[in-house]
């Protein structure tokens, strides 16, 4: 249960951040609906944000390991 709670909290934080970052990147002037190019942009932005998350996560893990080896 604790594991699930953390997984859910993690996913929610990711969704919140992506919504904010991708709105900023893709919606210059909010219109009466999301047009198809905005939808495409949001979908791509979301994929890139998750790519970035994975890269950052890997870089951070490797750094922690290096610091441990140096100690």
């Amino acid at each position, binding site marked *: 249960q604790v594991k699930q709670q953390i997984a859910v909290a993690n996913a929610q934080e990711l*969704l919140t951040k992506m*919504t904010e970052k991708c709105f900023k990147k893709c919606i210059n002037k*909010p*219109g009466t*609906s*999301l047009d198809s190019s905005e939808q495409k942009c949001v*979908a791509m932005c*979301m994929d890139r944000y998750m790519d970035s998350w994975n890269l950052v996560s890997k870089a951070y893990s490797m750094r922690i390991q290096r610091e441990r080896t140096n100690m």
Partner: protein
Amino acid sequence: KELQEFLMVEKQKAQFNAQIHEFNDFCWDKCVEKTGNKLDSKTETCLTNCVDRFIDVSLLITNRFAQLLQKSAGV
């Protein structure tokens, strides 16, 4: 039992208000440039659309995320 219901309703109101503060913070920066004697109609439209599009983006991202999860779970 009535107390529980009362507390739940109040909690929902608090969440609703917190959400409005967030939307207003975000959409103010997006839409409001000058602050004159009243909000002009262009700014008003922008604010209203900003809330609706923000929710659209949030739903789009949440649904797509759920699909990706299901795919990666091999369902």
